[in-house]
């Protein structure tokens, strides 16, 4: 069953004079999904987020959250969205409970319900033990937990977290990942920006890669890998070292039509490595051919690419958007139509 998108942007554009910070961004995120929003510094991630939460006005295009327009219905958006900016925003001489109590009151949560809610969010974020500590005395990781607790206070449908894992130590990063997965399990729609891509790849359902204000790739991780990394890398692990040259020449023969093919061998490891855009059927033919020539193949495997490779592949490319964008954007446009 197709779910309706909770967060949707259509041709979202933001210009500051001559400078285009965001250029026709169209994405959609379904309910309960986790979107990883990736891009180098200054790519336009925070601009997009600030438009989504109603802090910025787009020059062109539109953005909606749960059907509410981010510009026209900004008051409604504030109830729907929990936003954690990359700057914590702490106050001096305030204990964690007082800090959360203040934001609870600011969101209009009644006192009795607020006390209960503060206990709940502290429990969810594993921050109960911090409740009597002064906010300014907390470590960065502890502050991030309190920040998420604050974001959760009014039980928002969508949570937008700007660099939640930034500056955290490895253990705190693992804890943060667990926490985000827990939030996803609670049915929250999450938009998370991060530079720490291996962390992001473990929690995201969909990924949007943005550079210079333009969307370069958008879709599930698998889709993105497929679309972006069209040249896949394979390794053939041989059993006998003397067959390496023969195997290399057979592979070279099979890839003769691919002008960009790159074949290398590692004699010590007994591996022939090559990259290609050959379809799976032809690769099966190659394997059969090696077998026919009595080459003992221990392994024939594709080297998996990860989000980091995809990101680097996209960011090193020029301004042309990948086909992943066009297909995903078209799908988003069709769905909304």
């Amino acid at each position, binding site marked *: 069953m197709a779910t309706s998108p909770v967060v949707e942007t259509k041709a979202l554009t933001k210009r500051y004079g001559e400078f285009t910070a965001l250029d026709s961004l169209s994405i959609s995120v379904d309910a309960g999904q986790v979107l990883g929003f990736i891009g180098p510094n200054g790519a336009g991630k925070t601009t997009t987020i600030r438009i989504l939460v109603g802090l910025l006005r787009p020059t062109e295009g539109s953005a909606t959250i749960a059907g509410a327009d981010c510009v026209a219905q900004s008051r409604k958006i*504030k109830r729907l969205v929990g936003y954690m900016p990359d700057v914590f925003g*702490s*106050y001096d001489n305030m204990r964690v409970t007082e800090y959360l109590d203040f934001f609870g009151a600011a*969101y209009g949560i009644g*006192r009795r319900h*607020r006390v209960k809610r503060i206990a709940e969010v502290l429990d969810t974020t594993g921050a109960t033990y911090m409740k009597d500590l002064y906010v*300014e005395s907390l470590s960065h990781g502890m502050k991030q937990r309190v920040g998420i607790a604050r974001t959760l206070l009014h039980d928002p449908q969508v949570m937008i977290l700007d660099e939640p894992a930034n500056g955290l130590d490895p253990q705190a990063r693992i804890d943060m990942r667990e926490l985000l997965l827990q939030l996803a399990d609670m049915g929250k729609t999450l938009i998370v920006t991060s530079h720490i891509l291996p962390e992001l790849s473990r929690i995201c359902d969909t990924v949007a890669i943005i550079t210079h204000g333009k969307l370069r790739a958008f879709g599930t991780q698998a889709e993105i890998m497929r679309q972006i990394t069209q040249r896949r890398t394979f390794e053939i692990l041989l059993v006998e070292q003397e067959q390496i040259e023969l195997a290399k020449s057979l592979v070279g023969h099979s890839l003769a039509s691919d002008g960009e093919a790159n074949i290398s061998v590692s004699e010590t490891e007994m591996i022939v490595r090559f990259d290609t855009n050959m379809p799976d059927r032809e690769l099966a033919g190659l394997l059969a051919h090696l077998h026919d020539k009595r080459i003992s193949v221990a392994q024939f495997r594709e080297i998996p690419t990860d989000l980091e490779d995809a990101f680097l592949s996209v960011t090193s490319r020029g301004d042309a958007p990948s086909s992943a964008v066009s297909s995903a954007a078209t799908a988003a446009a069709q769905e909304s139509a």
Partner: protein
Amino acid sequence: MINPVIQRELFSILRTRKALAMLVAMSVAFSLIVLLRWPTDGRVDLSGMRSQQVFRVFSYTLLAGVLFVVPAFPAVSFIQEKNKGTLALLLNSPLSSASIFNGKLIGSLLFALLLLLTSLPAAAACYAMGGIDLYSQLGLLYVVLLTCIVQYTTLALLISTFVQSTDAAVRMTYAAVFAFGILGTGPYYLLQGETGLLSLIAWWLRAASPLTVVMDLVGHGDVGSLALMTEGSTLAEYLLLSIVSSLAFVAFTISRLNHRLFDRAKSKGKVTDDRQVMARGFRRLFFLVDPQRRKSGIPFYANPIMVKEFRTRKFGRIHWLLRLVAVCAVMSLLLTFAATTGVVDWGVKTIGGFMVLLQIILVVLITPSLASGLISAERESGGWELLRMTPMSPMKIVRGKLLSVIWTVGLILLATVPGYVVMIYIQPAMWLQVYMVMICLVLAAIYTVCVAAAVGSFFQRTATATTTCYIVLIVLFLGPLLIWMGRDAPFSHDTVEAALSINPTGAALSIIEAPGFEIYELVPGAWWVSGILALAALICLGCQVWRISRPV
């Protein structure tokens, strides 16, 4: 090799917009002073009266510039570096503590000298008018100002090593400058004609103030002396005190420039509810309202912003407010008690005048530290973005913030009511005057809060906002009093009356018939002007908050 800190310090000051604004403002102010007072007729003033008038205004403006502009940069010098992490880098470099300090001192002094240089054309014009001695007046004025610059720069640098935030540095520096530079002269006038240790201390306190020396230099040494002759010039004593104190400040600051500056544990703050019964009881007795107790939630009828402001402000917690209110009440009663027992033979009106002045000083000193950072502190800490994300309207935010200041200032004013009650008890006929004075004081508080909040909202950094607020409010409140000091010459009755009307202080003093103010008719004109200015400031604040809260 030139100390690298000097170059960096000076350039970083000169590159700020604040420095440019200060240089331009000082140049314009000095040019205007000379232009406005330059003789327009063809006759020569042989008595030198006219040039003396110009010289007085010029000297006071220059002194005000030195007192309120010069400490702004050194006040934040060390704390800014400490908070940005660059002080640790400097201390880890081969530079000695003395080199770092010298670099900062010389950098700040060079900028101050630049400010003084902007006054030279005006000084030359004053001299060209004749009637002013180059050495005994103009030369000495610059010597005093240079000493004052060194003294307050070293003091500001010292304070900068003690505080934890730039905002606190600015507040404490201005409080110290105000206390040493202006308030120090007060006790002398109270104890003038008396003998004994107290009177001696008062004389030395007066001698420590550059204001006294400048007043002597411009021939105002006897102003406020109530027909008693002042005891000669305090120039030598001032120079001695200034040099000795500067050296002490330098030595103390250098001794503090080491790793101990960073050796401060973050206070986790133990909650009283978790302490033993005895400790809880003791704290209850000591604090009355224990700041470390676990708070109940913000009630539905209270503005959350107001409660937040009280909780986050160091002196906003109720136990501090209670202390402040108690001190004000005791001070007010003591002053009235002094009048009743005849220890000081001044009468109720003079004491009333002092009470009004003290209250205004209290309001002008405390309010900017509370109101100037209302918006800028939020913007600086990143809290403004979080507040914008809440469903609270900008007006609710402003209301909560203003209420938090108004409550505090209101409590301080209320604390002085017992003094006035005693005053009415002594002289029942004064009830109407006291009633009108109270209106003036309330108006002064509202006026100060609105102006400070409005001015502060235009800045993104609390330190800049606080500095600017202090300068604006001191100009608004002290400026008319300086003009009043020249009420016989160079300023006419109408000019002084118009100047006194721009804030309610003059009105309060004229109502209470304080000496020198009884001849001015300032009510209701001053009330109207103050009310309109406060309203304008409020509208300005509203517009600015609306501007920074809307999506752009």
